[in-house]
């Protein structure tokens, strides 16, 4: 099994071209070609797409630019990469050949999780909520890369989820020998993402293992759960992941705060679900 895992890891890390959904790319291409678009508008729209955000952060944190692992918001990445490079990233991005319903669901779930993470960070008085939004957005990027690099295994996972009605997370473990949280850890390391994002991505299912920035894992863990409860997008199965009580306590969230967070998420929901046209 170890050799097989190593082989799969190699395949995952060799991912060259990360495609996104056709309507998303269409919209952003329109935007960069419009002279009146401001960097802020461009940052906002990139912040809604997990693949473009991952690409931009990977680029700005690459050793070529000389400050790996430092930059964790799209806004800052835009300042440092400049319009020219952002444009290069966008025009070289391709789209999925087929836009499957499960992919659309994953995109919506990721975007909902970004918004929810930001709201939780704001409501619990954490600094720099934008960084939590990015982490929430990317928390399932491992699923996208597995679907691309290991398509056969991905089909098996889907089959298992359907037939046995189990968590996607557990189906991944059965088929691959690891789940998307491991994949996230590998990718975050390989792409030189900052430590707080890396820990959020790696430990969003098990926040108690986060060593340096537990608040990121806690926030995304809870955001993921809320989005599942509210059925915003789809994480690939119809189950609820286990909510860890410690994460709630660590952030000082009580019933009143939780209600406030849910209200705010529902308020912002229109914006979330209308971004990705079907």
């Amino acid at each position, binding site marked *: 099994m170890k050799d097989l895992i190593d082989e799969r890891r190699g395949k995952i890390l060799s991912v060259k071209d990360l495609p996104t959904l056709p309507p998303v790319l269409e919209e952003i291409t329109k935007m960069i070609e419009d002279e009146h678009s401001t960097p802020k508008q461009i940052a906002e729209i990139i912040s809604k797409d997990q693949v473009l955000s991952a690409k931009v952060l990977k680029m700005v944190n690459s050793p070529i630019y*000389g*400050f790996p692992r*430092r*930059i964790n918001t799209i806004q800052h990445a835009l*300042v*440092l*990469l400049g319009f020219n490079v952002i444009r*290069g*990233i966008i025009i070289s991005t391709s789209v999925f050949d087929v836009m499957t319903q499960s992919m659309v669901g994953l995109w919506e779930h990721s975007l909902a999780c970004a918004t929810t993470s930001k709201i939780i960070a704001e409501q619990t008085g954490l600094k720099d909520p934008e960084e939590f939004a990015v982490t929430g957005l990317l928390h399932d990027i491992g699923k996208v890369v597995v679907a691309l690099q290991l398509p056969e295994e991905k089909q098996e996972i889907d089959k298992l989820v359907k037939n046995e009605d189990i968590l996607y997370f557990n189906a991944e473990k059965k088929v691959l020998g690891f789940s998307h949280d491991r994949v996230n850890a590998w990718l975050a390391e390989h792409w030189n993402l900052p430590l707080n994002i890396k820990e959020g991505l790696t430990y969003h299912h098990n926040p108690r293992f986060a060593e340096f920035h537990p608040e990121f894992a806690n926030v995304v863990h809870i955001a993921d759960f809320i989005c599942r409860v509210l059925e915003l997008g789809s994480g690939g199965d119809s189950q609820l992941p286990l909510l860890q009580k410690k994460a709630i306590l660590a952030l000082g969230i009580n019933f009143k705060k939780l209600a406030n967070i849910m209200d705010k998420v529902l308020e912002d929901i229109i914006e979330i679900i209308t971004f990705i046209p079907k």
Partner: protein
Amino acid sequence: MYTKQDFFLITPDQSLESLFKELLEERGNIHTFNRGRSAIDRILQTPPSLIILDILVSDISYLEMIKLIKGENVYLQIPLILCLEKDIPQELMDIPAMDLDIDDLILRPINKKEAIIRTQITILKASKFLDANPLTKLPGNTTIIQKIQTLIDAKRDFALGYVDLDFFKSFNDKYGFSRGDEVLMMTARIIVNTVKDICGTQGFVGHIGGDDFVFTSPIEKAERICKEIIKSFDEIIPYFYDPQDKKQGFIISKNRQGKTERFPLMAISIGVVFNIEGNLKHYGEASQLAVNLKRLAKSSPKSSYILDRRIPKNYE
């Protein structure tokens, strides 16, 4: 040690592909891209030692590709050879010499010996990119002096900004040089992108050395450039500190006398002089004035800029 270099060949032409494979096989790994767009991503992520770009590439204009690659300080040192058809197109002739940013060109039908030599010379020349700052790859002092003296001699109106960092030394002392280099790379990117964003090709950025940078711009754009640089720098610099220092907003390091002292997070200071109706006579005078203004800006521990007061009314 001899390591094989990576060459990127961007062409839809199969005969060109096999020709260059034959010519360059021994010298390096040739990666061929039939489409320009697919090459861009790879160039941005893993810059090669040489790019051979075919004018026949059709999914994106070759001029746009050149602009994209050569417009960035981190990529502009990659040598680029443009491969043309039998003749040189008029659009290429119409580009002012200063703006035609390619390193060589090869015409069809291709003479094999010539192609080999040109490729070698181009790679060699690129490695001699001596004046560039070794860290940021921005133009160094020779180019800076030349550029500014040319503007002065032509009696062109322009703004000249001198930029440096406050408390850079104490940061370096505490975190070490490689962390300091990260800050310089970041600062270079901010200045380059801001100047480019605000004045396109009318601006110029150079790296004098250490934490000293210069830029030139049209007079009326200088103040906006200063404001934007300061805003971006102040937002991003905290992320270059360890979490604890970022949180408390200062570092403990040694001062010039070797005594332990508190230092605020780094700030950026800019001094700007204007050349109006040829009031400046030579580079030394211009730089001295700008440096003095920058020093004045530095007396504040926060990021700040000071503009030459001699700005005439019609520019305000």
